[in-house]
């Protein structure tokens, strides 16, 4: 395997991207038509990339597993999208957004990539407004902003509590226009299950038509993967039911390295778990922390009574409430970053101060802001979230404080990519949540939408041309080639093998069991004995899966159990790598808390001397299939410090 080369352009940080664009190779307009690009995924990253490549004139094939591109999970993002516009004149700048993102990521992301992200953030907002995204406005008619965690400025643009929806519909509309123009062909209800590599370059995919059950072959001069995050390895998460890691896991097994798999984000404000039949967890947007105050009772006796429903939250007097975030972090208060807020909630609940029936919940209280601003303002800002909460919990959050608890939400880790967003397989790119590039060990709120759209609208359409400009003499390849034949056969064999097990347990059984192991030992608090145990348990569960799984129905027709089984088979492997990576990283940083490495106050204790690197895992096969490579992180512009939000 060659050395990891991030290909960061020369020159001062602020000029790197401009330099890159000035010197990269481009493809001339007539050649673009002759070049095929496969884009897997129609979320913010995939749809924006497919639409932009179509506009440029490339021939694009775009895949998603849902019936329509508009339903990718980006649709669920609520709170907002960051940009360094400084419209509020509160001291924001590209540099500050860059700095906050690096610091928020606990100094585990690349300076070059992050600076570029901050730089293009402003163009994203311009473009989305031009597309007709109805962002919130002030009475003046100018754009409004709100604050998100980890920042002292107000730089988040939003469309009520449906920002992701509106941004995705923007990208979907651009995509629809290209589909009509014929530059993009859409393959909905298709799931990618294999990558095709020819002479060392990514040249196509094998996808399963989810309606007919047939395997199909598709050629591309380049392949772009934008299939989202792998949070569902925990079973319960804020991700959609179908969110999966299959595409990234298959490219990993074909040679794309997987970076920092243990960097997963637990979001502090989700509706708590309420039963074993539960299928997913619902996020209550971080934006709520603008106006909501988080607390638990100061006395354990009160907590006990609240759990037993003997008293109500309202009856706890002000002086008997512990606003623990405001107490511990006076500078950022309720707006500390997610990792910090989640750990603090867990700490209080573990110590016996938790509320709700299970004792695993804390309050998010709007009483003060309703008093200050009026119910109408709160309703205007968060109405749909309050409604969503009420439907699930059956309690009115205008009258009683919301109950919340941390839940798995986002994966910072992902496929390793260089500055061009190319993986370690030439011609294979990875965008959006699926890659690892910009968020280090912790992502700041409202930065995933920014990254997905940056990658798809403003980065890939440039960088992919640097590769494609060398491919103009390569004619479209026949999918009868042996490489396609073999990839299809290996995909088919795996699916048949799943069908043949004919055991006794359902896919969901295994997925739930996996989730329990992951949450218990690889969740918010990790330690060496726990992680070692988890790896063992995962292996046992995986063996059982391959012996005792039951899938009714047939291979060559729509089969929803088979779809799930194929995804869970990949999760069962990825889970082990995640735990292994967590075990290897003997430090705490961002969302990765190793209990052995904490300050006396319970904050993360980083070890910059030994761990300031990206752990990039290579799949080598055999009994010990995972080999780690290190990409050392160098900070030239930023002074690396302890992350303090006090």
């Amino acid at each position, binding site marked *: 395997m060659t050395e990891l080369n991030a290909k960061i352009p020369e020159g001062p940080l602020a000029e790197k991207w401009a330099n890159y664009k000035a010197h990269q190779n481009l493809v001339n307009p007539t050649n673009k038509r002759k070049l095929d690009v496969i884009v897997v995924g129609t979320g913010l990253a995939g749809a924006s990339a497919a639409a932009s490549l179509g506009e440029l004139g490339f021939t694009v094939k775009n895949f998603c597993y849902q019936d329509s591109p508009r339903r990718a*999970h980006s649709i*669920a993002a609520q709170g907002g999208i960051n940009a360094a516009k400084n419209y509020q004149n509160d001291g924001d700048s590209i540099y500050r957004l860059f700095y906050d993102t690096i610091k928020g990521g606990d100094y585990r992301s690349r300076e070059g990539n992050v600076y570029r992200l901050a730089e293009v953030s402003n163009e994203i*907002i311009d473009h989305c*407004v*031009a597309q*007709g995204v109805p962002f919130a406005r002030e009475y003046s008619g100018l754009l409004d902003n709100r604050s998100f965690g980890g920042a002292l400025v107000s730089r988040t643009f939003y469309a009520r509590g449906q920002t992701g*929806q509106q941004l995705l519909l923007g990208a979907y509309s651009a995509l629809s226009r290209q589909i009509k123009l014929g530059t993009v062909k859409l393959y909905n209800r298709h799931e990618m299950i294999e990558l095709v590599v020819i002479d060392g370059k990514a040249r196509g995919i094998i996808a399963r038509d989810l309606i007919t059950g047939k395997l199909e072959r598709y050629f591309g001069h380049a392949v772009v993967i934008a299939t989202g995050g792998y949070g569902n390895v925990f079973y319960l998460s804020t991700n959609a039911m179908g969110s999966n890691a299959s595409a990234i896991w298959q490219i990993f097994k074909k040679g794309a390295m997987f970076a920092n798999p243990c960097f997963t984000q637990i979001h502090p404000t989700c509706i708590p778990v309420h039963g074993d039949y539960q299928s997913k967890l619902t996020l209550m947007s971080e934006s709520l922390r603008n106006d909501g105050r988080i607390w638990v009772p100061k006395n354990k006796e009160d907590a006990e009574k609240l759990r037993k429903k003997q008293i109500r939250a309202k009856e706890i007097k002000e002086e008997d409430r512990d606003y623990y975030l405001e107490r511990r972090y006076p500078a950022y208060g309720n707006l500390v970053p997610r990792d910090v807020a989640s750990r603090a909630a867990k700490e209080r609940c573990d110590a016996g101060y938790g509320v709700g029936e299970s004792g695993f919940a804390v309050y998010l209280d709007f009483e003060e802001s309703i008093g200050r601003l009026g119910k109408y303002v709160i309703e205007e800002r968060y109405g749909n979230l309050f409604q969503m909460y009420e439907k699930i919990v059956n309690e009115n959050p205008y009258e009683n404080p919301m109950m919340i608890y941390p839940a798995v939400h986002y994966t910072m880790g992902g496929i390793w990519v260089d500055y061009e967003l190319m993986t370690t397989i030439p011609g294979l790119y990875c965008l959006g949540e699926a890659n690892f590039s910009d968020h280090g060990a912790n992502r700041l709120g409202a930065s995933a939408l920014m990254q997905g759209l940056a990658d798809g609208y*403003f980065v890939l359409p440039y960088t992919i041309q640097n590769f494609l400009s060398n491919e103009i003499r390569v004619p479209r390849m026949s999918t009868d080639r042996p490489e396609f034949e073999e990839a299809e056969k290996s995909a088919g064999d795996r699916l048949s093998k799943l069908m043949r097990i004919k055991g006794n347990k359902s896919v969901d059984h295994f997925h739930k069991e996996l989730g329990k192991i992951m949450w218990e030992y690889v969740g918010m608090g990790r330690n060496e004995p726990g992680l070692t145990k988890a790896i063992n348990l995962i292996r046992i569960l995986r063996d059982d899966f391959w012996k005792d799984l039951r899938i009714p129905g047939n291979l060559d027709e729509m089969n929803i159990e088979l779809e799930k089984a194929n995804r869970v088979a990949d999760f069962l492997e990825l889970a082990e790598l995640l735990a292994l990576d967590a075990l290897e990283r003997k430090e705490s940083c961002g969302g990765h808390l190793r209990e052995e490495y904490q300050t006396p106050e319970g904050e993360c204790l980083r070890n910059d001397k030994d761990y300031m690197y990206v752990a990039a895992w290579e799949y080598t096969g055999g009994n010990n299939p995972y080999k780690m490579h290190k990409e050392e992180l160098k900070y030239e512009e930023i002074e690396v410090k302890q992350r303090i939000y006090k």
Partner: protein
Amino acid sequence: MDFTLKIWRQKNAKAKGKFVTYNLKDVSSNCSFLEMLDILNEQLVHQNEEPVVFDTDCREGICGLCSLYINGRPHGPDDAITTCQLHMRKFKDGDIIVVEPWRARPFPVIKDLMVDRTAFDAIIQEGGFISVNTGGAPDANAIIIPKEAAELSMDAAACIGCGACVAACKNASAMLFVSAKVSHFALLPQGKPEAKERVRKMVAKMDELGFGNCTNTFACEVECPKLISVSTIARMNREFLWAKIG
């Protein structure tokens, strides 16, 4: 809680479907409707039978994938929600619950309760966009949009494309869906230049795909999980007339 479920089962698009009855016991009232179906499916898998196929993904009322016609109502017996947000506490112990797919000619059944709604995508492809390429947009604050217009536009843009409006309509009209998209853009200055062409093309496509006429029964508004108002239909009719004259 215990329930008797009468669920539409149909092997594929061509097969004839029928109702099959299932009994389900001890369901928690906090269970969502789709989680209740998950429990049923778990049981079916245990009996080595094929699970009931239905569309779902986000399970929080925003992706628009879940559908289901429950006891004669799209998205079931509650207002302003999608099926994934419906909870069993809305039913009574012992209830008989009839579950069908969306029934509308332009939405053919794929399997069991899953239907094909790509006709909506085809309508959007005709004109549900502003023709702007990536790059070169003016500064976002160069376009000033009165708050009220932005809010009204957002009201319409909130549509999740689930198709409940079509399922609720006796004529299978897609007027609410199309008018929501037309209104979203028509209310914004950016959307004005292409407004006439947009409404003309989208309406033509809607007719071509076999969606019926609007006869003002407003069943669509009642069942819309996002409370899209029929006033968008009035706006579209105005836009359409103006497009025909102009």
